Every structure is written in structure tokens, then in C-alpha cells.
């Protein structure tokens, strides 16, 4: 390899490095460093090496419960977003004949994002609340006598908000991988006598794997790292991993918050690695 080519290669990655190093690598290193020092309990840090922050974290039952709660939301959200995302993408790619209409409908999927996350969450209240549309409607028809309590400020409403917010992150990559499926492959399956269900199960689903995996990575890392949706939609009744260490920051316990953040980062990395183990995205995309 000539030095000229080497230089060009470095020049190519320079813009990325200029962004990543100051805004990602350095902050992570600072957090990592802080997680290993002592504090005076009022925000001051002593440069003394300690493992107490981690020891405390691993000894507490709370940690396990927080992770269990957050993982439950992650898995439920993954399940619903991938099922809905797959169907929406399937419909757009294989059932909408006109490309123009398909693109139009695709844009419609993004309409909820034209407003802020907070507005979207608040707008669930008049729908799901005790005197909300669903409860008054069901009571009016006479199906229920008492308003359904689980609709709002519950785990249910948290999952509803996540699915509402994150389904688009599934639709886009699945749509993309489905759009790259050659239509004649579907015809060949039809020619071999496959039913619509067979085609979806044996051809389209395995060929959309990379899209589903990409979507799963987005959804997992967003839900794992969220505390706001949980806090608002559960009405404060449910805690989350990030919510807990956000409170640590609030009471100036920086080292314990930093240790929690590092552990969470590792857990998310493990989850992403697990997804990549199931689906080799790089191979699927270059195929």
C-alpha cells in the first residue's frame, strides 16, 4: 500500500473522527473515570480510586428489578413494533401497486413525528384517561360499568407510547430491505406452488431479516436508554434504569450515576451484539 492511499484513507475518516472523538469518546471516558472515584456526597469528587460505586450497584436488589422492568418494556415494544412494522412495510411494498401512492403512504407514517414527543404523549391522556374517549365510549355502550384503570398511567400506557413512538424505526429498515427483494423471486415462489402465507414465511420474512435486525437495534437502544416516557406514561409508578441514575444525578451522587451508566452501556452493547449474532447485517446488506 502506498503512503498516498493511506493518507487519503485517513482524510476520509477525519470528519467522522472530528465528531466522534469530542462528542462521544471523550465524554464516555470522563464518565468511565468518574465511576471509579470517591465523592464527598455534595457533588465534590476526590481523585481516589475505588470500586465501591460498582459494588453498591451489584449488591442492590433494586438494580435487578430496574433491569427486569426495563427489559420487559424493551421486549414488549420489540414484539409489537416488529409485528406492526413488518405488516405495514409488507403492505407498502407488495400490495400498493403505484410507487407514488406507496411513497405517499410511507410519508404518512412519519406524520406523528411532525409534533413534539411531549405533545404526543399528552395527547394519549384524553384518549386513555379515566374520563377519556375509550372509557366513556365503553361505558356509554354499556360494556363496562367502571372505567378501566389500566389504560393510563400503567405499564400498558408505557408500551402504547413506546410502540407509537418507535414503530417508524422498524418500518423504515424493513421497508428498505423488502423493497430490495426482486419481484420475480416472489413470482418464482408462486410458480412453485407456494401460497401467500408460504411466500411470506419462507421468502419475505427471511429476506427481511436484516431490516428487522436494524429496527431491533434502534428500538432496543432507545427503550433501554429512556426514562422520560416511562416517567410520564406510568404516572411515576414505574421506575427505569436511566430514571434511577437520573435521580442520583439530581442528588449530586455523580460516581454512582456514572457507574450505572457504564453498566447500562455494556448491557446495551451485549444486546446489540446478540442481535448481530443472529443476523449478520453486513453480510445480508452486501449480498
Amino acid at each position, binding site marked *: 500500500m502506498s503512503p498516498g492511499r493511506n493518507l487519503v484513507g485517513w482524510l476520509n475518516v477525519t470528519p467522522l473522527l472530528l465528531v466522534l472523538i469530542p462528542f462521544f469518546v471523550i465524554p464516555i471516558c470522563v464518565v468511565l473515570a468518574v465511576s471509579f472515584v470517591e465523592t464527598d456526597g455534595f457533588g465534590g469528587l476526590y481523585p481516589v480510586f475505588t470500586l465501591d460505586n460498582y459494588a453498591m450497584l451489584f449488591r442492590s436488589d433494586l438494580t435487578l428489578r430496574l433491569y427486569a422492568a426495563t427489559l420487559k418494556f424493551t421486549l414488549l415494544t420489540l414484539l409489537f413494533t416488529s409485528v406492526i412494522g413488518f405488516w405495514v412495510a409488507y403492505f407498502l411494498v407488495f400490495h400498493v401497486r403505484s410507487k407514488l401512492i406507496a411513497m405517499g403512504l410511507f410519508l404518512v407514517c412519519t406524520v406523528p413525528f411532525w409534533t413534539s414527543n411531549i405533545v404526543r404523549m399528552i395527547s394519549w391522556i384524553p384518549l386513555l384517561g379515566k374520563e377519556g374517549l375509550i372509557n366513556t365510549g365503553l361505558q356509554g355502550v354499556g360494556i363496562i360499568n367502571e372505567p378501566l384503570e389500566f389504560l393510563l398511567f400503567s405499564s400498558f400506557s408505557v408500551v402504547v407510547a413506546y410502540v407509537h413512538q418507535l414503530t417508524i424505526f422498524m418500518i423504515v429498515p424493513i421497508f428498505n430491505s423488502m423493497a430490495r427483494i*426482486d419481484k*420475480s*423471486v416472489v*413470482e*418464482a*415462489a*408462486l*410458480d*412453485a*406452488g*407456494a*401460497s401467500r402465507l*408460504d411466500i411470506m414465511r*419462507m*421468502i419475505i420474512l*427471511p*429476506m427481511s*431479516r436484516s431490516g428487522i435486525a436494524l429496527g431491533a437495534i434502534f428500538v432496543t437502544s432507545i427503550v433501554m436508554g429512556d426514562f422520560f416516557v416511562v416517567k410520564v406514561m406510568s404516572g411515576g409508578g414505574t421506575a427505569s434504569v436511566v430514571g434511577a441514575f437520573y435521580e442520583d444525578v439530581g442528588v449530586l451522587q455523580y460516581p454512582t450515576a456514572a457507574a450505572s451508566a457504564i453498566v447500562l452501556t455494556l448491557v446495551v452493547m451485549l444486546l446489540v451484539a446478540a442481535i448481530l449474532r443472529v443476523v449478520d447485517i453486513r453480510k445480508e446488506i452486501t*449480498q
Partner: protein
Amino acid sequence: MNTGKGHIELAGIGKSYDDGASFAVQGINLKIPDGSYCCFLGPSGCGKSTILRMIAGHEDPTEGKILIGGENVVGLAPVERRTAMMFQSYALFPHLSVRDNIAFALRVRGLSVKDRNAKADEMIEKVHLGEFANRLPGQLSGGQQQRVALARAAITEPRVLLLDEPLSALDEHLRIQMRAELRRMQKDLGITFIHVTHTQMEAIALSDIVVVMDKGHIRQAGSARDIYSAPRDRYVAEFIGGQNVLSGRISDIDKGTARLGGDTFGQIVVPLPEGHRKSKGEKLDIAIRRDDVDLRPVAAQPDLPPSATSIVGRVQAIEYQGNYVKVQIDAAENDDFVSFMPERKFYEAGLTVGDAVLAVWDIQHTQLLA
């Protein structure tokens, strides 16, 4: 009438769009006997692929009937027609191994893993892909992929195999090799093959029946020899190639022959069939096979036998082809007038560009075009 299982009859089929405002094909009538190799030949957009897809059941005709084995199959699913299609880009399932690709049709029919793998392996041996059975299609060469596609189509024991431009993705050398393999496969399976192509030589080399198409209509259907040596009209003659097409006006009629005069050539004699309805002054197109045209010195004109006719021209271009030499003469203004001279004969005559020559052919070798 032969109503063998793979006998196909297209009865007045047409496919139109926008309530008949435009059409892909129109008024197609054709009979293809069981167990024959039939090629649809035409430029892109002539409707040949549409016909194939209608026989396969991937598109429905807007009018007419398609009979396979005497039974109208319009509206039936591909699998009920017992046809199988080999797609242009092969359309192999990229996520399945060669064996799973070939066994796919058996899998959707509910065969057990053991049974379908046994059958697939048998087929894999037939197409000589034994060592590649566990590879993915992306790891195979073009020729190997084509064999997988062929095996995948043949495994359901169809009565008709439909091939959409099966050789177009291969390089020249491989194409000729696979051509022979297709023909051998057809003989082995003993079923009807319908093959769509835009390559004349492919159609001529393979087929029992060649169907020449243009703009959604059949121009001529017949044996390869009929199509090549007796084209019905100017379009077929020019599309198949190997023919010199001349246009002229009849200046004189004498029993079985007529004299024809053109803008760029003098008087030539053409034969007229019995019961012809040609009259003086009428326009006429004729075709003469390029290998029927002999080149002689101009001085030889008086010595020609009465069975021959000739035109005078200048050599415009010479192209060496190996076993023959392509000599182009400026006798027909817009159209090429070419003689395919045997290689030895060409060098004995010692022609060069610019020489005046006499192009001579037997009157009976003239083909009148409609």
C-alpha cells in the same frame, strides 16, 4: 388434432391495457405440439415475454383462450397448469442453499425433509451440481446458477417448461455451451419447452418451431429452416438476417417470371408463382440469401446462363469471418447488399474495396416477400 399433455394452443389471445387503448399482444393464434422446442423471437417490447407469462399464469389475457393438453387454463394458478417457469435473472432464492432452492416446490407441497432432499439430490446429480449442493446462489457462477434455476423448474415434473431469456445473462462462450445443454435437457425430459429470446441464432439453433414477433403480432411461425430460407415478409427477412432485401417495380411480366427494376440496380429477373396476381408497375420486395450470391468479374455478364440473374456494383467493405468472407456491395441504397463468399473462393477472385463486380444468383433462389 394432437391433444397430448403438453400440447399448447393459443386461440385468439390478446392483452390490452386501459380498456383497449393500448395492447401488449393481439390476435395470437398458435399451436405448439407436445414435446417440441418452441422459440418466441423478437426485439424487446414485441410482446413475447407477455405471451410466456400468460401461458405461465403470471398474467391473464384480456381475450382468447390458452389450451394446454386440450384444457382451457385461463384463470388457473401456475401450479394447476403444471407449467414451470425459469425466470430471466433466474430469480433464485438468495437465502436458500442450492438444495433448498431446488426442493422449494416440494417443501410447499408438504413433502418431508427426507423425501424432498432425496428428490432434490437426484435432480442435482442430473445437472452436475453435486459439489455445490450446500452453497448459496450468490457463491455460484452464472452458468451454475442457470442450472440451479433449470433444476428448480424441472423438479415438479411440469408438462411445459417456460424459459424467459434463459441465456441472456451469460457470456458468449457459455451461451453456446448452455444452448446445447438446454436442448439435451429438453430431449431427456421429453416435455414442451417454450423459450423467449431476442437472439436469432439462439432461436434457429434450438427450435423445432420459431415464432417471429413484432409489435404484439406474430409475423411468421414455422421450422427454423422455413424462417431462415423462406421469410414471409421484409420484417422477418431483415430480423432473421442472412438475407439481402431489394425493393423494385415490376417492369415486365413473362410467363413464370417478371423483370424488376430498382433505383440502385438495373433489371433483374424474379420468379413468379403460378396463379400470381402481380401486374406491371406494381411494387415488389424480394429477398436473396447472402450465401446464394456469387461475385464474378463484370465482363462475365454475357456468359451467364439463362437461369441466373445479376446486378452490378462496387465493393464497399470486406470483413473476414473465418470460413467465409462478408463482401458488401453498393447495390441497394438503404439496405446492405452482401455476399457471403466461401473463404477460398474469395482469395482466388482477389477482390479489393472499390472493385466493380457482378453479383450473380439463381433466379429460383429468390424469395418473394409479402
